[in-house]
């Protein structure tokens, strides 16, 4: 079945360099550096990436960072909490705009 998202396409990510190599090289070098052990552990970074993947609703990233989180020794409970963090921020980002709505209500109401 033809779909916009195909799990097999994730393996072709590196091929974006076929059309513009210098920029792709810079991106992948940067990407590799970002995920190295630093002030944050590689494990903490995998959980952040998992949460962001859910916030962005990127199916490739969700597949990749679910596996990565498990391979960094995270358990299902920790991973689900990370997704809840993403959800809370997304939900909160919508709700906090209610203050703007309330301001406007006040502004135009008697």
């Amino acid at each position, binding site marked *: 079945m033809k779909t916009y998202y195909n799990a097999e396409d994730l393996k072709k990510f590196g091929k974006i360099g076929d059309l513009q190599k210098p920029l792709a090289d810079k991106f992948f070098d940067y990407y590799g550096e970002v995920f190295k052990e630093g002030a944050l*552990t*590689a*494990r903490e970074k995998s959980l952040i990436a998992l949460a962001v993947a859910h916030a962005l609703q990127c199916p490739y990233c969700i597949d990749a960072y679910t*596996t990565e989180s*498990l*391979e*960094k*020794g995270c*358990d*299902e*409970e920790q991973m689900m909490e990370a997704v809840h963090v993403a959800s809370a921020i997304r939900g909160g980002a919508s709700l906090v705009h209610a203050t703007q709505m309330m301001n406007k209500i006040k502004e135009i109401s008697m």
Partner: protein
Amino acid sequence: MKSLKAQHNPIAESSYELEILNGIELTSFREKMDQIGLFPLKPVDLKIFQINMGKMCNQVCKHCHVDAGPDRKEIMTRETLEYCLDIIRQNSFHTVDLTGGAPEMNPNFRWFVESVRKIDPNCTIIVRCNLTIILANPKFHDLPDFFKNNKVEVVSSLPYFTAMKTDSQRGEGVFEKSIKALKMLNEVGYGDASSGLILNLVYNPSGAFLPASQGELEVEFKKKLRDRCGIVFNSLFTITNLPISRFLEYLIRSENFDAYMEKLVDSFNPSAAMGVMCRDTISVGWDGYLYDCDFNQMLDLKVDSVNSVHVKDWNGKALAQRNIVLGNHCYGCTAGAGSSCGGATA
């Protein structure tokens, strides 16, 4: 849950497993080893004499490469164990590693451990204890004292520090029993750095993915087990699941086989390949046949040494000259940080 053999599952036949493993459309393990100058793979000095005392076990773990369980009746006889003792007498092995099934279920287990200790007061004797055996029957309750008296190093699987993940792999209630058994081992001094009694735990992934960094996971395990359960242990070994037996059956059933093999091949690490355990180990099957490792044993791939394939015909010189038997399952030992019965290798 029954063993694959009792279910008459075709994967219980090693020839069928090998057919599946040889059918992958990826670079073969032998080719990969050839590319880095490690084919044929030769042994180094023999240090570890690993004995599979039988396939009988009180547990039926979902990933078990032995397909062990209560319905498996293959048990090493006293006669075969006598041959093993002769070999231990003639060689100065660094380690005698006892595995199974649950090795403690072999009726000659205690006699054998005491005999090995008499022959060599200093060698490391490892028992791969599944923990729950200690609580399975009153006759096993004194195992911690027996291990202590014979200076046995205990290596035990604990897939995770939570009940959910442990029980999903090793069976309902296994986590709780394992924690009780670990406390019994701690009570006699195991895991206490000053006691000299070594208790190591083994982590292996609960699914089609590679293990986490051994060092990082050890820190996490130590903290969680100490804080939540008051348990101490010495080291954590991370072991990759090899695509054989029950884990192979799971991979095929869950349609993860191709992706998992691809992951193992893509993660091939030449440093891990240099340090594979089969180079300094000989594995003895329950029936006395010799293998390069416990995994080759389960695939019935005997040592490539015509004059020394059974403990009855042990010939150290012939074994030292053999070529190690390799197959695509070996990718499990060379992926990422490497994997062996003693954990990561690279």
